[in-house]
Structures are given as C-alpha cells and as structure tokens.
C-alpha cells in the first residue's frame, strides 16, 4: 500500500473541507520554533513515521514555548523508527478536546466492499472495544448512507448542536477515501473541541498501489509498501516496471545485517509469490542470507527478465545467484532462460547460479542455460519441475563452496560493433539492436532469421535487415534477444540487443 504521512493526509482532508489543527510539518529545529511562534501557544509535536506506537516510543511530545519546540524538534528529527529516519515533524496547536471519535474506512475482503467503522467514544484502546464499534457498509460507487451515520452519532453523548456537522464530516471522510481509492482511511481521533469545532486530530491513509497511476496529484513515487526508505535500486526497478506491463517484475532489497554469520549473501530471483516463498525457505535452510526478493512472473517479456537479472547482479557482495519459482509454470520457460542467459553472458557471470525453470518448455530452457554456462567463467545449472527446491538449494550450496564463496566484481561486456558506423542498427523500446553486417556470414544469418519470427529478412547482400516496420518491432525484444543468444550458441556473435539500463550503465 502506498502510505501517506499524517501531514499529507491532513492536507487532503483540509482541501476536502474538513478542519485540521493549525500547524505544519517541519524539517529543522528552527522551523519548529517558527511554527510554534506562529501558533502562539502550546503545541503538540509528532514525528511523521509509519508506526502504530508512535506515542509509546516517544515520538509525540508537547511544548509550551517556541524555545522548547526547537529543542524537541532537534531530538525528534534525529530519531529512527524501524529503518526509517524521521524526516518531518508535524507541529500543531494543542486542542482542547471534549469528545473523541474513531472513524475508519477499510476494505472488507469477505464482503467485497468498503466498510466504515465508527465509534463515538473512540480514541486510544479502540482494539479492545471492537465489539462496541459500529460497522456501516459503504457502497463502492455511492459512499455511506448519511442516515445510518446519523443514527450512530445521535446515540452518542456528543452535544446535539454538533450532530449535523459531524454527520457531514464523517461522510466527507468516506468520500475522500473513495475518491482517492484508499485501502484504508483512518481519522483516530476525530475530535470535538471546547470552542465547538470538529477537528481531525490524526490521519492515516494508504492508497491502493494499483490505483496510484490515477492520482498523480498525490506525488507517490513508489506505490509499494516497503519497511525501509526505497533504495536507489528499488527506485530504478520500479521505473522499469512502470514502463513495461508485460508480466510482473517486483524487486525489494532485504536487510542484510545477518549476512556475516551466513554462508554468504545471494541474489534471489523467484517467479510467482507462493513458489518464491517456498524457494526462499529452501535456500535459507542451506544457510544463505538473501540480499533481495525478486519476482518475474505472469509471462514477462525477455527484456524484463534480463533487466531483473541485471538489477539483482548489481548488488555488491553476492556469492551466488539462486532462481526458483513454483516449478510447474504455465508460461513458456525458455523466454525466462533467454533473459537470464543474456544478463549472465553480458556480465560474464563470476558467481555460481542455480536456476529452477520447471514448467512448459523446461528442456529448452535448461539447454539455453547450459549453453550460457559454457560462455561465462562461473557455473550455471538449470533444473526442471521434478527437481525440488530443496535439492536445487543443496546443489547451489555445493557450487558456492566449490567456487570458494567469494564475491566477485563484474562488468558489462558490450561487443565492439555496437555504436560503430558499419553496423546495421534499429531502435526498439528501451534500446537498440545492432547487427555486425561485416562479420555476418551465411552461418550467422541462419539462426538470426530462424529465430526472428519473420521480423528480419536477408537483403540482396545476404545480410539480415528489418522485414517489418520499426513500430512493429518496438516491443519484440523477446524474439530479438532469442536471435542474439542463438547466434552466440552458434559461435557467431554478430547481433546484440543493447538494453543499457539508466542508472546502472553509463552509456544509457
């Protein structure tokens, strides 16, 4: 879920006509002092961190004077919650609270519909009073029934003069959550104050990852829930996924603090959630620490698998590369094999790799990996559906031990004919295809034409050229990479699909 900070949520509430406390988020002690001066009275200061026990961990404090606010600001901004250093502190007026309400909309998977939880004696300890919370159904298209909200509000102890406005505010909160496609939208507490105001004292909101594209105004950079600030590699991987929707590519780095006590840090490449989890268990059982989680599945393009492998390999300190998914894939596994082979050959893989590509065309997939193994310094072994994750993990351990278990730096190898004036080239999405016409003899042209799915043909001089328009080949990376790998297998390195990755490769 793409979570928003309290101050971001409150800004949205305010835009939607709901009162929020006076104040704003600050990034320095000096700013904290300024905001406290502007407010001109006691303030509450809250770290902007994704945790449910912010108060208990000392992340919420009070200040009577601007001096005190500056001092607290200094301290709060040096705190860390989980892996997240505090970047912002929200400084707000202290409220004179009369009543607290719990207002929370979330998604009820069993009902396949949103659900509003409402408690007019809400606030802290709400989980313990689950039975007293009113549950109101919400229509995904029409929101909540105001009359039902009114019945709940009228049954409370809250001053009657505020009921109309309260009902309106609660309906607006639901409305905002619905408009922004929130997975959860919680105002806890919504308060009434001594001076007769209704104010959202807190706000936690998470937007549906899959709907973030419809809400560019929210400025969400990575629509994924991570337990740490996004790393450069994660940002880079997310950008790739954003631009290529053929299959899924998910990449997240894991904490590697425990790697020192393990048999070494490894790159992990899974396929499908369930199978990946089992495969990670198998390789962890052999004593390895996993640097990253990665999933390429749902019939991904070859370029996507290639890029995923490149991202995994760019992590420093890896002693091996372990790939394994559900084991009985419905997709054609040779596509994934081509993508992996391209990455391994280009990087001249120096650490052992074990890849379990069970499923459709697994024999062809394993043959491609075997061929790649002969073209790189390290050993690559491919396995099938009848080879269990546990067996593959043991095999992996043996190979890592035989290799000495040392990480090795790798650099990308690009053939000399790339960017040369004499080579034939054409663009595809995210890269360029180069064919070395000078060295492309009849033996080299054979596999190119055979695997090009009629995208390439021989010209009068017997050299492969485009048979289709540039537009038609733009997304044919799968076929063109197949041509490249098959030429390499034939000992004829005359075609190269240059998919330089911005952020990883200088030439991109």
């Amino acid at each position: 879920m793409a979570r928003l900070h309290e101050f971001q949520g409150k800004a949205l509430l305010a835009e939607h006509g709901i009162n929020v406390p006076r104040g704003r988020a600050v990034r320095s002690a000096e700013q904290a002092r300024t905001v406290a001066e502007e407010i001109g009275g006691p303030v509450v200061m809250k770290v902007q961190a994704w945790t449910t026990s912010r108060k208990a961990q000392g992340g919420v404090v009070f200040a009577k004077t601007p001096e005190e606010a500056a001092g607290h600001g200094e301290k709060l901004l040096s705190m860390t919650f989980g892996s997240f250093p505090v970047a912002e502190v929200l400084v707000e007026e202290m409220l004179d609270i009369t009543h607290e309400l719990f207002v929370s909309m979330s998604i009820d998977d069993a009902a396949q519909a949103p659900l509003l939880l409402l408690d007019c004696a809400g606030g802290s300890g709400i989980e313990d009073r689950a039975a007293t919370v009113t549950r109101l159904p919400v229509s995904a298209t029409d929101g909540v029934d105001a009359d039902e909200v009114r019945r709940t509000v009228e049954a409370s102890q809250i001053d009657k003069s505020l009921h109309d406005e309260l009902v309106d505010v609660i309906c607006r909160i639901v409305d905002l959550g619905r408009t922004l496609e929130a997975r959860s939208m919680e105002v806890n507490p919504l308060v009434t104050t001594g001076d007769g105001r209704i104010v959202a004292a807190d706000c936690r909101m998470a937007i549906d990852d899959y709907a973030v594209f419809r809400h560019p105004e929210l400025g969400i950079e990575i629509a994924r829930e991570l337990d740490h600030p996004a790393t450069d590699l994660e940002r880079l991987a997310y950008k790739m996924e954003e631009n290529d929707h053929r299959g899924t590519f998910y990449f997240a780095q894991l904490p590697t603090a425990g790697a020192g006590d393990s048999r070494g840090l490894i790159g992990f490449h899974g396929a499908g959630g369930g199978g990946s989890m089992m495969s990670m268990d198998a390789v962890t059982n052999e004593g390895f620490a996993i640097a990253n989680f990665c999933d390429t599945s749902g019939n991904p393009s070859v370029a996507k698998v290639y890029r995923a492998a490149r991202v995994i390999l760019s992590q420093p300190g890896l002693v091996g590369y372990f790939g394994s998914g559900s084991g009985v894939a419905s997709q054609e596994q040779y596509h994934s094999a081509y993508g992996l082979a391209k990455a391994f050959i280009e990087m001249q893989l120096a650490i052992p790799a074990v890849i379990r590509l069970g499923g459709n065309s697994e024999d062809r997939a394993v043959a491609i990996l075997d061929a790649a193994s002969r073209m790189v310094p390290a050993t690559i072994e491919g396995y099938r559906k009848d080879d269990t994750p546990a067996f593959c993990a043991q095999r992996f351990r043996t190979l890592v031990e035989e290799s000495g278990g040392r990480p090795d730096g790798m650099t990308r190898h690009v053939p000399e004919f790339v960017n040369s004036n004499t080579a034939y080239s054409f663009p595809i999405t995210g890269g360029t295809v180069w064919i070395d016409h000078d060295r492309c003899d009849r033996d080299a042209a054979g596999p190119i034409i055979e695997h090009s799915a009629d995208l390439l043909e021989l010209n009068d001089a017997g050299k492969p050229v485009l048979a289709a328009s540039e537009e038609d080949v733009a997304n044919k990376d799968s076929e063109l990479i197949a041509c490249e790998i098959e030429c390499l297998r034939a000992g004829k390195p005359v075609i190269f699909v240059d998919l330089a990755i911005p952020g990883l490769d200088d030439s991109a």
Partner: protein
Amino acid sequence: MSIIIDRSKRVLVQGITGREGRARTTLMLGAGTNVVAGCTPGKAGQEVEGIPVFDTVKDAVEAVGQVDVSVVFVPARLVKGAAIEAIEAGIKLVVLVPDRVPVWDAMTIAAKAKEHGARFVGPNTLGIISPGQGVLGMIGGKASSAKEWFNGPTPGRTVGVISRSGGMTSSCGYYLSRKGIGLSTLVHVGGDSVIGLPIPDIALMFEEDDQTDAIVIFGEIGGSQEERLADLMNQGRVTKPVIAYIGGKAAKEGTRFSHAGAIIEGNRGTHAGKVKALREAGATVVEAFGDLPDAALNVLSKLQPAGA
C-alpha cells in the same frame, strides 16, 4: 463432472485480438474449451483462430446466442469496464485474468455482479482447468503439457484443487497427479484481496460436484478465506475431506498500519490461526508442501468407494 468449466460451456474472450488474448485463445481451444466468440472494440469482422470477433459483448451474444462464461484479457485499467459490460449483457460468470486491477474497481464489479446475479473469478487469476474438459485463462499453457501434467478424474480418488497462488495451482496438480490422484478441477482464486469467488465459495461448488471426493487447498497467510472455509466445515456445509497447506509461515508479521485490520479480522489471517481453525474443523493440514500429495493419498484411501 467438474466445476466452472467443462466441454458444454460456451465461452467468450474479451480482448481476443491482444497479445495475451490471442495466444491464450489458441491454447484454450487446444485444451478443449468451447470458445464461441471474442470481442475487441473496433475489431468487429476479424477472426482469431476462426473465432468471430465483435465490437461489444452485446453484439457477440446477439450473434452467437447464449454465452456461459467470459474470460477477460484486457489491460488492468480497462477490466472494470469489460467486466461490467459482460455482466450487463447477461453473462453469469466472468473470469478476470489481469494483474494490477485497482481494488475499488474490483469492489465496483462485485457490486454490479450481485445486482445481476452474476459471479466472477479473480482478478489476478491464472485461471481454471478441468483436465480433459477445458481451460479458462492461462493455466497449463500448451494442451500437451496440461495433458501430461494433470490426471483426469479417477473414480474414488479424485480431488478438486483450490489455490491462492497461481504457480502453485499447477504445482499442486502436477505433484498430486504423479501420485496417481485424479483431478476434477483446479481453481486459482486470484491473488488480490478482493476476489469474486474465494476459497469457501469454490469449496461449496466442489461439495456439490459428484466427481470430487476430497478438496486440496493451497492457502496463504493474510485475509480470512481459510478460516471461512473452516466455518463452513463446522456448519456441515462442506463435508468432503479437506487437505491443506498454508504458505507463508516464515514470512514476518507485517507491521499493521491501521487499527481497522485488527478489528475486522480479529485474530484471523495468521499462519497459526489458519492451521488451527482448519484442523479443529477436521481438515488435514500438512507443514511441508512436499507432504501434500501423500496426505491426500492417505485421506482418499480411507474413503468408502462410491456405491460401496
């Protein structure tokens, strides 16, 4: 018999002219699925594998007559429109294959389906296969593979499979088949939180299916599908034996972001909670995935053969 798909079902493919739609139509036909029409706006008059293409679902239904199931292969952001179009045209079962469908779209589809008495599988489903009968979606790939991987039903030794993981649906089917167990239907319910037909609903279908002797579940942590199946077993609404594996035991507990999750789910959602609920309801729950086929075999061997 089988559930959801068999040779008698008349199937429409929405998005039939796209990359996946075209490829999967070929594979579904190869698996025996009776695909009667396809549609893609603006492509009326074309044919894919000899299947006529129409602009709209309504046009397709008017031209070819009754359609039992529509399988949707359109980009995620167009799924809501496609599903509602199918439901409004009177189709009672829609299979939503695409991944990344926004959850508010899924809830809107759910509301529309209830209004029209329709049901849907997915979103984010690999699909459904009844070996020897037909496929909806992507499961199995080539017909020759599916035939090699998945046994058809075997009297007295046939299970139905319900899985929350796409890849593991096929894995379950393959490893069960290798033990000589027959399969009526394999269903991937979909990987999203809001799905049309979750585990308990599919289990009720298997309960009614005379060919299914037992039900195999590949569950996962999160949500309440497994617990709701246990509820049905406790109520006597699912009486066939259930053999289950729950994935994600090692996954660390996610930090709860909001209080609502805890209130709605109570203690539902955890690995331990699911295993306990299912075991108390009488299910056989294995700790290791590799033990699932033997456990299923063991349960089947104790059943009274039909008619005995």
